[in-house]
């Protein structure tokens, strides 16, 4: 998983619902050149990699005639700019092509994997929020106490423990020894709700550790800065209960950067989590794209990367919108 990073607050000349709409439109327009450049990069970079997709696929059984036929069929003999234009033309008509390896349409593969990736990312995000924010708040309130140090240590290990190791340990404990959770696999939520949730508990948790740690650290620092504000001192001076001050006054304000950060982290999660998917045998985007890169399955890599890029851009726009929605000052300017 890659880090999200902070962003500048969107500048708005006119505030209110109109402004939100305008912001969305402007963001979408800005996203278009990004997508075009990105598509060129994905297309070009893959072709810079050594290795031929057809030879890779055929390996032990390569038959020169078949290799030549497939090269023609997938237009691999055409100059790269022509290949690119042909691909873009098809994508604009909603056709992402089909996998060289399995023959399955890329659109179908994406649609099969999208709900899985969304569910895994959502589970991980929910867990990360449930762990990260309370831990951050407690660490801030109990600054420089044992509780704070402990929370920091846990956060640090959350970021540094390898998912692979944690995943295997969880499988050994919960699936092999105690037999209370399935060791791996994905069950569609529509097929069996509880089993689906159960099968996602461990992968969701493993994936959430780093995100939770990240959120905890940011919540802590946001809370610390809010807790030292004048209005908190005023609230305390009014004799409000400590919990009320922390939750109603401090946390609500501290949450603003956290919400945008979470949205961006969620975008990251949607791009797939290769290791977690591999350990828990979850057929999400991460495994799909890594396999496709290794087998030089161009159409799949292009389709999935483009799709996740669109998802990531959408998450960015959502982050901007949420920022306005949860921050009343941006809606009602003076």
């Amino acid at each position, binding site marked *: 998983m890659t880090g999200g990073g902070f962003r500048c607050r969107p500048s708005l000349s006119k505030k209110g619902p109109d402004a939100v709409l305008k912001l969305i439109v402007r963001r979408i327009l800005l996203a278009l050149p990004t997508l075009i450049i990105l598509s060129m990069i994905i297309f070009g970079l893959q072709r810079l*990699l050594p290795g031929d997709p057809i030879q890779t696929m055929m390996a032990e059984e390569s038959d020169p005639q078949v290799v030549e036929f497939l090269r023609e069929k997938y237009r691999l003999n055409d100059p790269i700019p022509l290949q690119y234009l042909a691909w873009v033309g098809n994508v604009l008509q909603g056709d992402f092509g089909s996998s060289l390896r399995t023959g*399955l349409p890329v659109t179908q593969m994406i649609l099969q994997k999208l709900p899985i990736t969304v569910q895994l990312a959502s589970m991980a995000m929910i867990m990360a929020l449930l762990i990260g924010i309370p831990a951050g708040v407690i660490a801030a309130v109990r600054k420089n106490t044992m509780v704070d140090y402990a929370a920091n240590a846990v956060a640090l290990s959350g970021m540094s423990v390898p998912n692979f190791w944690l995943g295997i340990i969880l*499988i050994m404990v919960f699936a092999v020894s105690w037999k*209370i959770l399935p*060791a791996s696999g994905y069950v569609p939520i529509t097929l069996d709700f509880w089993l689906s949730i159960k099968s996602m508990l461990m992968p969701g948790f493993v994936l959430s550790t780093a995100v939770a740690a990240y959120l905890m650290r940011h919540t802590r620092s946001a809370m610390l800065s809010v807790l030292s504000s004048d209005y908190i001192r005023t609230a305390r001076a009014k004799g409000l209960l400590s919990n009320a001050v922390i939750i109603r006054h401090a946390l609500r304000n501290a949450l603003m950067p956290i919400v945008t950060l979470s949205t961006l982290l969620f975008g990251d999660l949607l791009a797939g989590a290769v290791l977690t998917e591999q350990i828990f045998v979850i057929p999400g985007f991460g495994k799909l794209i890594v396999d496709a890169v290794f087998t*030089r399955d161009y159409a799949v890599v292009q389709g999935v990367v483009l799709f996740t890029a669109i998802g990531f851009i959408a998450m960015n726009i959502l982050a901007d919108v949420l920022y306005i929605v949860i921050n009343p000052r941006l809606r009602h300017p003076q």
Partner: protein
Amino acid sequence: MMKKLVLGAMLMGLLATTAASAADLNVALQDDPDILDPHRGNTFVGRMVFGPLCDALFDIDTSLNIVPRLVADWSWSEGDTVLTMNLRDDALFHDGTPVNAEAVKANLERALTLPESNRKAELASIASIEVLGDLQVAITLKAPDAAFLANLTDRAGMMVSPATFDTAGEGGLVCAGPYKFVERIQNDRIVMEKFADHWDADNYHFDQVIYRPIPDTTVRLANLQSGDLDIIERPAPADMETIKADSNLVFDIVTGLGFYGVNFNMGNGDRSQSPINQDKRLREALNLTIDRNVLNDVLGMGTYPPAYQPFSTASWAYNPEFDGGERDIERAKQLMAEAGHESVSFEILYANNSAMQSLFELVQAMASEAGFNITLRPTEFAAYVDEREAGNFEVSQFGASGRIDPDGNFHRYLACGSAGNVGKYCNDELTDLLNKARVINDVTERKALYDQAQKVAAEDLPALYFYYTPRTWAYSAKLDGFVAYADGVLRLAGLKTKE
């Protein structure tokens, strides 16, 4: 109170284990197969999945003898050029249409003419196919082809319903096996259900068979231990003792038909000019530095049988005379000195994975004792294939998954101009012997030719063999009737859950 009750019930539901239905069989594969069409498929795991889905004309038994499957009986003409087959009268495709002579003809023609077919080389000897009756078909060969029947036991002999030729592969594979295709989710599962109208349906005891690709050996084993899986293929040798010690599991191993070793770049571009490729004495010296027993003990935990020839002990072409050759560093040094070298440097190219990495690190260490200075070049698989084809290697990883007929283990890799001969080694005498062995059906005569061919190859040493690929399995002790085959393909007939 109500809230607590609801919450409790939810938690109970969440934590209650759901045992997989007893009528399901869950099998883990090492990789996700490629296209599900026997005529177009390329992967070993693909063969595994085709097993229960697509009956072939012939099959093998555990001793690698060819036995009829969709064929009831067959005969060769005088001169071994016409194969006449009578088909079973009770075999049906999953769409209900009969497996008849017309369907067999259509399938073989498809395998021969479909532009993307990878079966052309296996069926190249076919001159014509004639339907003699509803269930009788004759195949005329251009010349006798010793490997022909063996090829018909595999994908080249698998029958797809002709009505579905256009949709096979894109998720609608309709064959004539004991199980029919239900669904495939890439990287997740391939589900098949029992085909009640199969001629041997009584011998298949699971209602549903699910193949799940799980590349990591630790994860595969953990799933087997937890009961989520019933059978896993290729467990890691390092886990063998764990499996054997677990009373709920069974470990099974047979020697496979494939091998691993190295081949030399004998004539593919400039890099064939390096000393190791130019002087046979140096290759022999390298051979003398390799202790196969150490490879077997250290890498295979005793499961990697030492290999000195292209045919494993499972093959009738195997000849123990060609085995042996103890490690002899002094003799290796002497050979190097005779060749005028105190030390020889070269590079080994291989596909980057932990098994090959450990193998070549050991080879590097062993060979260094005689003065070989080996550089290792691990390369990602796609680039590795590319570099080999382009001749950009001195010495390369050499491996074959192995074929039932010895021709597939030898001719393909060392005959002049063969598709798998990336080192472009060419010895006319060897090629001639291997070509002769292709057109004789008599096993004794063929074996004599392979023996001669091995002698010629030993003179040139275009490749070294290190170990035979074991076919290992781990499965639940609840299963009964599991039989491992040397081709590594799982056969489900007779397999059931213990009463």
